[in-house]
């Protein structure tokens, strides 16, 4: 009988403006997540991380004094951590590792390391065929996806704004959210915020913060003896479609359709069975396109679907309950924080923003410019 994996511990590092180093944030997150699980560093034999130079997992292992027998430094942008959990599920079930930490830390806000044009290596085709035109990477790409969605389906900037408004409402219930005390957001404020790359405005874009987190996975058998309620990854799916802007097959139909389909199929659940959605919201359009891809509404109908306020607390569709990348935290890559919030919701640990009786959750990570996607279906241990 194959072993199954379970999530036994989760934690964030300090968030916001920390003044900390990347490795400090990594350590904080990892130690807190292990503490959450009731495990110690010595229990860890597998480490998955990215976002640090060329040897991410090896670097973090050295810093912590670990000698892991399994590492993963997959880089898939924002979806990296859903992918790593997918890999960790396989590694644990094959017996390659017993206890795996998936971690991330970024001090991009404190270090002012974010660049509007994006980071480009001369070997990438983008350096020749995208960058010479002054595209903002990734904002301009998402802007062009939004523009096409508006043109094809009549989606409005106000409908996109609703996604930011709903995220703010959730963030006001989350004491760790960057915008916890910022007060409610209105459509008017979003629409009046400065244009960055039309139709996207400042308030359609995620935050730029420090932050990080860690997720501890071990065998379900072992997790059942630990102090937290085990949360079980039920299904995983991944899809990649393009890397350069000009190579996108379809601006409004992303690879999220395929990754979600694969994850649902493996989990034996369908979208109607899911209680909580934690969906990458680098931009309002990212969330809108993924809502369609997950099957919450028909392709092209996302604008009308969100317009009634259903994504807000009490609105009927629990969505980005932490406040998301738009209002809670966005440390360069947000995928790990989606999983942490889903686990808290499934454990019933989400405080004022708790979704009553949440038994199942979907986490959807989006990397690059809608380039790659990874979907995780999580459930409580039954």
């Amino acid at each position, binding site marked *: 009988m194959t072993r199954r994996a379970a999530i036994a511990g989760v934690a964030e590092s300090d968030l916001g403006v920390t003044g900390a180093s990347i490795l400090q944030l990594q350590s904080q997150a990892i130690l807190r997540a292990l503490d959450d699980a009731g495990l110690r560093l010595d229990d860890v034999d597998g480490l998955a991380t990215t976002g640090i130079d060329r040897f991410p997992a090896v670097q973090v292992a050295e810093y912590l004094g670990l000698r892991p027998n399994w590492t993963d430094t997959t880089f898939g942008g924002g979806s990296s951590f859903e992918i790593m959990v997918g890999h960790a599920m396989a590694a644990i079930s094959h017996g390659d590792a017993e206890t795996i930490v998936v971690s991330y830390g970024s001090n991009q806000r404190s270090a002012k390391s974010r660049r509007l044009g994006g980071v480009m290596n001369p070997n990438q085709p983008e350096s*020749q065929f995208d960058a*010479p035109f002054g595209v903002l990477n990734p904002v301009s790409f998402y*802007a062009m996806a939004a523009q096409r969605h508006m043109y094809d389906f009549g989606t409005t900037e106000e409908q996109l704004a609703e996604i930011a408004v709903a995220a703010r409402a959730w963030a006001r219930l989350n004491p760790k959210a960057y915008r916890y005390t910022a007060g409610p957001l209105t459509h008017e404020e979003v629409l009046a915020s400065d244009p960055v790359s039309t139709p996207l405005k400042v308030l359609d874009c995620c935050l730029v913060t420090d932050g990080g987190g860690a997720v501890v996975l071990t065998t379900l058998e072992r997790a059942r003896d630990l102090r937290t309620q085990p949360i079980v990854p039920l299904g995983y799916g991944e899809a990649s479609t393009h890397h350069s802007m000009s190579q996108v097959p379809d*601006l409004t139909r992303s690879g999220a359709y395929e990754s979600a389909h694969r994850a649902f199929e493996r989990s034996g659940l369908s979208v109607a069975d899911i209680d909580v959605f934690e969906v990458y919201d680098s931009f309002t359009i990212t969330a809108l396109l993924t809502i369609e891809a997950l099957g919450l509404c028909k392709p092209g109908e996302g604008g009308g679907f969100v317009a009634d306020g259903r994504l807000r607390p009490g609105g009927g569709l629990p969505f980005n309950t932490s406040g998301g990348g738009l209002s809670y935290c966005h440390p360069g890559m947000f995928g790990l924080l989606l999983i942490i919030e889903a686990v808290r919701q499934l454990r019933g640990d989400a405080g004022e923003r708790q979704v009553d009786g949440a038994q199942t959750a979907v986490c959807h990570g989006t990397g690059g410019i809608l380039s790659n996607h990874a979907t995780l279906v999580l459930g409580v241990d039954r």
Partner: protein
Amino acid sequence: MTRPLPPQTPETEGWWEATRHRRLTVQRCRSCDHVQHYPRALCLSCRSTDLDLVDASGYGHVRSFSVVHRSADPEAFDAPYVVALVALEEGPTLTTNLVGADVDAWTCDDAVEVDWLELDDGRHLPVFVPTPP
């Protein structure tokens, strides 16, 4: 405004050289006639490695566009300016700039044709202007 010089690689050298003569080229497969851009070492349709560069018509339409208000590099790009994805008649899409009209005048599916922006080393960047009706 001086745009930085784009790098080029062995498989894209012919494409960039053609821009010196204001020729927009696309890569065509000698085995199956598939047309693609950017130039690569294999055909994306049949995986043949027997490829050629052929002239494109220079006509296409706007798949999408965005008016950039925060310049990617204020020394190279004077905001606001229009970035776009233009689908050529031959099929492939180029990332480009839309010029020759007010930044707020563009719509998806607008018909466009190629124009050229000279770089300091004599190569050119293909940008697009409205096709006269």
